[in-house]
């Protein structure tokens, strides 16, 4: 390193983000003219990135706290240490909560058991031992659900290889861009034999994101499904086709998120009402 300019000493600070704004500006101006310092800056950036690879991922931190294993890196990195200790404390609270005996329900259950036993003694004994009804009902319910799920799966498989008829194509405008009754939700009416609906999701013009995700929430804000990996066209639209089975009649909120680098931000919200025509 032969550059003797005073800014050369600050090149490392630029790569690690430790400089004040005025120093950063001075170093940037210097780098524009100094090839040697540019090479040095790239090297320091690579080295800093290598050191930062020691940062524990969220998955590693959660697993380490769960296993009560203190990773070596938390000795060097104060923020990782803070995170690890917070997770440890949360884990301890969760385990304590799980281990705590829920006295009120236990006492209630004991009381019911004692009273039940007393009444049972007073009642004449049935000739045949009664079938455990609650267990039978529970198994029956589970079987019914399984049969429903299998039937739904078979329908979806049939629909997947058949032509789709009467497909509504719905333009969704952002809620903020609508006024009056339209803001109550875009009405989607599905004919009895319509198996899918295609949405053309319109966004306001804005700098593009790398990719988009549409989350569809039900009337109680419960998640219904997620469409990940949407791309925006040059006309500020995104498209997706949704099977009828995912959209039972009801009110929905479609929330569009954009991802840029590691950041995820809400882009638009759309209200949708779905009706199924008999």
């Amino acid at each position, binding site marked *: 390193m032969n550059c003797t300019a005073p800014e050369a*000493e*600050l090149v*490392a*600070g630029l790569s*690690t*983000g*430790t*400089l*004040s704004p005025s120093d950063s500006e001075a170093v940037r101006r210097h780098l524009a003219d100094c090839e040697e310092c540019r090479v040095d800056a790239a*090297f*320091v950036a690579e*080295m*800093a990135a*290598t*050191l*930062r*690879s*020691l*940062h524990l*991922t*969220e*998955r590693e*931190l*959660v*697993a380490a*706290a*769960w296993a009560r294993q203190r990773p070596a890196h938390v000795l*060097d*990195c*104060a*923020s*990782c240490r803070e*995170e690890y200790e*917070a*997770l440890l*404390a*949360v884990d301890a*609270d*969760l385990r304590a*909560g*799980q281990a705590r005996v829920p006295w009120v329900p236990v006492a209630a259950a004991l009381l019911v058991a004692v009273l039940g036993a007393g009444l049972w003694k007073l009642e004449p004994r049935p000739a045949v031992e009664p079938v455990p009804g609650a267990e039978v009902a529970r198994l029956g319910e*589970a079987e019914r*659900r399984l049969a429903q*799920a299998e039937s739904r799966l078979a329908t979806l498989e049939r629909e997947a290889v058949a032509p789709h008829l009467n497909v509504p194509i719905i333009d969704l405008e952002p809620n903020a861009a609508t006024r009056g009754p339209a803001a109550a939700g875009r009405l989607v009416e599905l004919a009895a034999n319509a198996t899918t609906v295609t949405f053309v999701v319109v966004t306001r013009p804005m700098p593009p994101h790398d990719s988009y995700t549409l*989350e569809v929430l*039900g009337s*109680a*804000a*419960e*998640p*219904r*499904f*997620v469409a*990940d990996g949407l791309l925006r066209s040059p006309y500020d639209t995104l498209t997706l086709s949704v099977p009828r089975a995912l959209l039972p009649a009801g009110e929905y909120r479609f929330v569009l998120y954009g991802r840029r*680098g*590691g*950041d995820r931000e809400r882009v638009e919200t759309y209200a949708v009402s779905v009706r199924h025509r008999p």
Partner: protein
Amino acid sequence: MSTGQASKADAELILGFVAGERESLARVDRWIQEVLGNRRFLLGADREDVAQDVRRRLLVSFRAGRFEGSSSLRTYVWRAAQHAALNHIRGRRRRPTSSLDPGWEPAAPASDPLAALALEERRELARRVLAALGDECRRLWALAVFEELPYRAVAQRLGITEAAVKVKALRCRRKAASVYQQLKGAPSATLTPEQAP
């Protein structure tokens, strides 16, 4: 959905959650709130946003059949919530983690072994560079590189002037650069602190 190993109760709860049944949603939500409501996370007004993120992760995970029942469903939900809370806290600190941490579930041993190996090699290099630095440089690098603090804040933490921090930073950078280059050139060599320049 593959819930073969999951208990029957957990499998039923997952079916209910995916189908949007109110009772199942409420039960899972209670577990999510057990984590997010912990004062250690200080989520404040962001708590509902994070909870929504957890519900979304769980829905995607359940639909893809990724809950295999190696732990109870409650533990699984807790971990998802802890992961989302941590992700949110890191987002507030502006520390990029997404490139390092693509998923939140425990990785299967065979999932992308090459990437895992590359990361481990890189970390080994970083550990050896740090081990070769003295305590003073190590402390300074921890503040500047791991904490990403500006020189002024580093100076306050170390109780010295900003100018002194800049001088030390330059000296430590040269030392680290030399060690780093040597180790990169000879990956099998072990450089002790005494050997460092």
